[in-house]
Each structure stands twice: as structure tokens, then as C-alpha cells.
């Protein structure tokens, strides 16, 4: 096994992948299963409560995602898990939803990380003046702003798979863990305390993505 043997304390390490009608979550579950960790895709609050760590993925629009989250009562469950200190990983839309407010559908979000989710400006251009397409779709690099256990082992030449038209802009710069350049420089990894969140799809980013997912599954904040 390329990611090393699991220590004993990881044997009961149940990971809940939150299902809130925001895209196909099976790919996240498949990646976690591939890494050898027990996981459950769930929309039941009891299962989120009994899980040891939480992944909050999602694709789609912020407005409808927040509506489903509230309808299912999962907004409170995520706040509770955060306050209990459980490790939480946001991915893509999940990363945007943990911010304070999204410009997409003018949506008030969970507010775990203060800040705003912005739309890429329509006239986005590269440094050589080439017009950039929106959404950003494809592979791009990240630059670590400060060390984080979930980023351990990554190389600055590694690339990760992005699909997004909006990006998080934390109110406090200490919540920016990594940045990416796409016409502008934006926060592609955010987090503090027991939450870490990536704008890119760790589950679709090949081996560097799997390595970060593996780091998360072992992270003890």
C-alpha cells in the first residue's frame, strides 16, 4: 500500500461525506475507499454526529445548496462538528459554503470562515493579455502560504483539478493556506483550527490529490 500502514487509532476512523443534493458525491467516496478508510455518504444528522471526521463536498450553485442544507438540518450539524473540533474538509462548492456570504445567488452561507465568495470578473485576462475562460476548468498549481499538515509532501509543481466560476476571499489573511493564479490570485486552500477546504477537486487530482486526501484522513488538529 503506497500510503503506508494505518496506525491502530485509525481503525475506527469513520468519515462522513455529507450528501445534500449538491452533485455526485460518489467520486469522493470512491477515492476515500481507494485509500482504505471507512466512509459513509449520508444525509442523516445522527451519522454525522457519530462520525470521526467530515467531508463536505459539492458541485452546483450556492443558493440551492444552502437551501437543501437548511432543509435537511445539516447547517447546524456542520457547525456542531466544527465546534466539537472534528476535522472537516471542504471541497469545491463545500469550500464556498463554509464562507460567510456568496455572490452567487446572493447567498448567506455557513460563516465558519469569515469572508465572501466572489465571481471571477468577466474580463479576466492572463499576464500576456489572453482572455481567460470562465469557469476555470482544468489543472492549475497551488502555492502554500503557510505549512499545513494536510499539504504535507506536496510539491509546488503538482497540479490540481479545478472547475469553478467563483472563489473564496477570506476576511482574514491568516485563513488563507494556499493560493492559485488564474488571471487574479485567489485563495484556493482556506482553513483554520479543525477545518481545511480546497477549491479544487482533491478526488479528481490524481496522486497529488489522493495524497492530500490521505493527509486529511490522518489529520489530528
Amino acid at each position, binding site marked *: 500500500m503506497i500510503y503506508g500502514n494505518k496506525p491502530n487509532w485509525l481503525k475506527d476512523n469513520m468519515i462522513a461525506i455529507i450528501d445534500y443534493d449538491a452533485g455526485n458525491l460518489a467520486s469522493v467516496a470512491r477515492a476515500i475507499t481507494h485509500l482504505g478508510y471507512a466512509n459513509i455518504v449520508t444525509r442523516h444528522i445522527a451519522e454525522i454526529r457519530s462520525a470521526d471526521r467530515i467531508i463536505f463536498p459539492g458541485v452546483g450553485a450556492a443558493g440551492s445548496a444552502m437551501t437543501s442544507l437548511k432543509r435537511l438540518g445539516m447547517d447546524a450539524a456542520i457547525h456542531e462538528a466544527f465546534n466539537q473540533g472534528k476535522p472537516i474538509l471542504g471541497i469545491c462548492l463545500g469550500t464556498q459554503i463554509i464562507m460567510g456570504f456568496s455572490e452567487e445567488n446572493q447567498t448567506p452561507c455557513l460563516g465558519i470562515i469569515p469572508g465572501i465568495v466572489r465571481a471571477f470578473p468577466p474580463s479576466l485576462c492572463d499576464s500576456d493579455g489572453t482572455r481567460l475562460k470562465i469557469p476555470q476548468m*482544468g*489543472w492549475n498549481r497551488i502555492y502554500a502560504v503557510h505549512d499545513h499538515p494536510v499539504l504535507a509532501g506536496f*510539491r509546488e509543481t503538482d497540479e490540481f483539478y479545478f472547475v469553478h466560476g467563483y472563489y473564496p476571499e477570506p476576511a482574514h489573511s491568516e485563513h488563507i493556506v494556499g493560493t492559485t493564479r488564474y488571471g487574479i490570485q485567489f485563495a484556493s486552500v482556506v482553513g483554520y483550527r479543525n477545518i481545511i477546504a480546497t477549491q479544487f477537486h482533491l478526488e479528481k487530482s*490524481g496522486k497529488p490529490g489522493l495524497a492530500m486526501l490521505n493527509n486529511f484522513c490522518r489529520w489530528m488538529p
Partner: protein
Amino acid sequence: MLSKRIIPCLDVREGRTTKGIKFKDNVDIGDPVEMARFYYENGADEIVFYDITASSDKRDIMIEVVRRVAETIFIPFSVGGGIRSVEDMRKVLLAGAEKVSINSAAILNPDLISQGAKAFGNQCVVLGMDVKFSGKSPDIPSGYEMVINGGRKPMGIDALEWAKTAESLGAGEICLNSIDADGTQDGYEIPLTAMISSQVSIPVIASGGAGKPEHLLDVLTRGHADAALIASMVHYGAYSIPQIKSYLHAMGVKIRNTW
């Protein structure tokens, strides 16, 4: 800065790839899952599967292939061929594909694009375009016409107009195949690719004509393509993806070169 994507395309009929490949030491050459694993491990940025199964009662074989691929590779992949309805799209996406590509069904029923985009998000819906040079005319102002049935049936629809319409209906990406260049290995159709890519704001994958790394350089620079589809040039072992990528990197194209 975003990397240009290199995307191998696998044609699959009843669960087997139709273009066998000459891997040096590989096991099951006609197995799409093994081929996908090989390309994943060798730096493919994405993989396209095109289901050319003729009879519709054997289509579910592809769903099983998709499921096995999704457990094996951890990069995006898309599936096209024979997708006629939102239900067909749902099956492929639930089995684990990142995107689904619709082609003639979208021409015959453009609502399929908006329905798919609404149900699964724009990023899941790829518009496959088969295009043939026809010369400029009042009906075809761009000089490029949409065709179906493998290029046999011209549709009287202008390719550029169709690309813009599909974008406004919610297509998240275009896979642009030149029927004239397809299979020639003489290079991509550059004027077509440049025209479409510069006039839509969604990514364009160039397809048809790849025979050597210089062709990819051409379409990713002069052709303004965001990604390049390749098939025979890698399936038959003439080139490898790492070889193509080192060439592009040396020529100053931004590509993903660690994986």
C-alpha cells in the same frame, strides 16, 4: 496559470476498446479499464470514452465499464456516444463519469443541453460537434457545417452559430471534431478550432487529425484550443504522453508535468 490538457480518447464497443494498443508489458490490451489506468499513470489530464456500441440493448455494458474506470482512475473522464436523454446522462454520471458528451441528440433536440445543465450543472455537459468544411454560403456563413452519422449527413446548421447556441443553452465545454481531419493524422483543423474557440467563452477541446506532437503545439497555440484529443498516435505506440508533454513544455506550452 491553467495547463493545456492532453486527453486520450478510447472508442469502446460492447465493453472492449476497438483500437488495440501496443503496450510494452501490459496485460489486457482491449480492456478500457486497463487502458485508462495506463494513461492515468502516464500523465493523461483527462480521458474521453466514446461508446460505439451499435445495439441499444448492449449499452448497459458501458455503464459497468464506467463504474470500473471510476474505481481505478482519479482524474476526470467523460463518456459520449448514444446519449439520447437526461436519463442516459444520469446513468453515466452516477456510474462515476465527471462529464457526459452529447452530439447528434443535441442537434435533434437542443433542449437536452439545457435539461442536462439544469439537472447536473453546466460543467457536466460537453457538446460534441462533428463539423465539415462546406464553404461559405448564406446558410453557412462561417463555412463550416454541422454533420451527423459520422459525417455522412449534413444538417444545414452553421457550426459557429451552433456552438454559440449550445453555450447559451448551458453547455460547459465543447469537443470540436473536424470530420475532414479525423483519421488523417495530418494535423488538426486549425482555422475551425481558432474560430470556435475565440468566439465562445467555454473551453474547447480540439479533436481530429493528431499525428505528431507538432500538431498539438499548433492547435494549442495558433488554434487557441484549451485541450487536445489524441487517439491513434498514442494507442499504437508511436508516441507516449510523457514524450508529447516534454515536447510541449520545451516549446513553452503550459502543461501539467508532474503526476
